């Protein structure tokens, strides 16, 4: 398959035409401009085309500008399926179910905490478990785990980890209905027991940032953001619990695809008809894992607030650290969308894509309904992250979705080779960024050059109108796994 088959629709979109590959039911649409088109991997384009061959797919297999090759489905992909003829696939969600991002605001200004930055990063690093082989601060019994699976972030709040007011500022109020703990394997329970309240490793992080640019003053105001302000971003997911749910159901789905005679280009696309017991069971277990992830980010946020109080010796009122929003970027949800002028329920898979609902959408919390959904886009540890808002255009074009991050450019190995002989932590320190990481090679693997520039990615979705820029955040202190 060749990239020269792709057709440019406009300055922000490419079409993967139906004749790219036999069996495509719909075209593929990739949101990239000329600049990012240069970095497109053929394999990821093939994966967009493969998704377009799945039964019951609606309108198009869509990919965001941070697209890169994944397993079965590309990362940065959105695929919506009909509930009658369509399918559900664990590969369309990914191993890290409800990997997502949460952003906290504060009353602090950059200058106030720079002298304390090293101490803050060190204490956060010791208070919040991260890295290979790390254990959480809690040991959960099966009953606790069941409650987490059905209550999500609310479980943490009920256990003193956070405020009731946090809940409304989380996508789906931090809990998707329809989770069924009895459909989660004993192995997932075991893996989840000691991993609640842990950051993980890889691209996950906790970052102290400052607001360095405001694009939309009115929206920033409504979100409680101002120039020079300190924010904290948390990027993590459902940890081993969600990985096990995904692994368990990939096997179930592979057999199901055979049983229901669904032809697959790639076994990681394994899926089952939405109405089948296999698909319904997966969704019920996936929701349990999504809720586990929301509880996880809630716990980590609580300990972050505690750490700030301790290190800065300030009261909660003075710090004013409250949740701006929390988004999931690896999840499948049943949502209402308009297809050919008619309202329809669809199962929308977002794998490395963020929901971006428009102003007025009934699923948005009241405090943000007039604005549109806040969208949080983490970048690499040396550059920037963004706050965007969802739009009506996203609803019309991408099932209310936008990008999720920078997207990798180099393999981990390439990055390590490129970083050889360099002290990445010192390079970052020279730029005013303090980093601590559990793994020795993590900093090399995660260095800026290993990623696309998140600003380029955000520029595409902003120009395409599927979300709009509100603020840019720059890192000051980073905790990595």
């Amino acid at each position, binding site marked *: 398959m060749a990239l020269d088959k792709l057709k440019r629709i406009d300055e922000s979109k490419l079409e993967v035409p139906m004749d790219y590959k036999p069996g495509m039911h719909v075209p593929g649409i990739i949101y990239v401009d000329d600049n990012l088109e240069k970095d497109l991997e053929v394999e990821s384009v093939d994966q967009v085309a493969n998704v377009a061959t799945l039964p019951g797919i609606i309108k198009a297999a869509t990919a965001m500008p941070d697209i890169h*090759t994944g397993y079965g489905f590309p990362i940065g992909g959105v695929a919506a399926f009909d509930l009658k003829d369509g399918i559900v696939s664990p590969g369309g969600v990914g191993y890290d179910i409800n990997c997502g991002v949460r952003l906290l605001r504060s009353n602090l200004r950059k200058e106030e905490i720079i002298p304390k930055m090293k101490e803050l990063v060190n204490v956060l690093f010791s208070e919040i478990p991260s890295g290979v082989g790390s254990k959480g601060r809690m040991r959960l019994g099966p009953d606790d785990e069941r409650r987490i699976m059905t209550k999500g972030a609310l479980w943490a709040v009920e256990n003193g980890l956070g405020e009731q007011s946090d809940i409304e500022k989380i996508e789906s109020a931090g809990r998707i209905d329809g989770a069924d703990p009895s459909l989660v394997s004993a192995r997932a329970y075991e893996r989840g027991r000691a991993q609640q309240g842990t950051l993980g*490793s890889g691209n996950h992080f906790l970052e102290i940032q400052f607001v360095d640019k405001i694009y939309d003053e009115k929206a920033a105001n409504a979100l409680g953001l101002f120039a020079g302000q300190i924010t904290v971003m948390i990027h993590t997911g459902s940890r081993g619990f969600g990985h096990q749910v995904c692994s368990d159901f990939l096997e179930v789905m592979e057999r199901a695809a055979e049983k229901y005679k669904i032809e697959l280009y790639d076994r990681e696309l394994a899926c089952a008809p939405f109405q089948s017991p296999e698909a319904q069971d997966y969704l019920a277990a996936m929701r349990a894992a999504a809720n586990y992830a929301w509880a996880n980010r809630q716990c980590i946020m609580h300990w972050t607030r505690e750490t700030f109080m301790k290190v800065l010796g300030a009261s909660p009122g003075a710090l004013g650290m409250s949740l701006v929003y929390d988004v999931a970027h690896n999840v499948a949800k049943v949502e209402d969308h308009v297809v050919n002028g008619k309202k329809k329920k669809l199962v929308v898979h977002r794998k490395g894509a963020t929901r971006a609902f428009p102003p007025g959408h009934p699923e948005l919390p009241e405090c943000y309904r007039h604005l549109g959904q806040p969208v949080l886009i983490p970048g690499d540890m040396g550059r920037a992250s963004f706050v965007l808002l969802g739009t009506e255009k996203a609803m019309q074009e991408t099932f209310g979705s936008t990008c999720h991050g920078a997207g990798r450019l180099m393999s981990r190995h390439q990055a390590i080779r490129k970083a050889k002989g360099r002290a990445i932590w010192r390079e970052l320190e020279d730029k005013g960024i303090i980093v601590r990481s559990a793994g020795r090679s993590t900093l090399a693997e995660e260095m800026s050059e290993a990623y696309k520039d998140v600003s380029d990615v955000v520029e595409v979705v902003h120009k395409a109108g599927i979300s709009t820029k509100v603020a840019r955040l720059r890192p000051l202190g980073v905790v990595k796994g």
Partner: protein
Amino acid sequence: MLDISGDAGIAAFGRDLKELFENAAAGMYSLITDIGSLHESKSIDIAVENDSLERLLVAWLNELIFRFDVDGFIAKRVVITGFSVSPEESLHGGETEKPFAVRASLSGEEFDPARHEGKLLLKAATYHNLRIEKKNDIWRSEIIFDI
């Protein structure tokens, strides 16, 4: 070690399938830490079965990831003590529907972040571009892990 955007993979070899599975395990462990730094203070036995060779390999590695994730157990030495690839040879005397089976004895210790280098945190072994093939009497497999 194989290069793949965002993740990590290994190529493992063996004169027979038993050796291939042992080497795949050792290769995978080497992504997590420097296995030379491990002691053999604890032993565990593992048995995994499945209905195809590829599924068995993925299930075998996922079992080791599971043990690492739950107990922190990581092996320095992996010895396959039983291996079957057909219903006749099955460990269960041919009565199982899952004729591909592996049984192993592993010795190692609990991972200690203070003493052992943490390299990659593996979420799962995947089917992505999974290959198991025999060429010139040597078995070879490529496995990609989600990081």
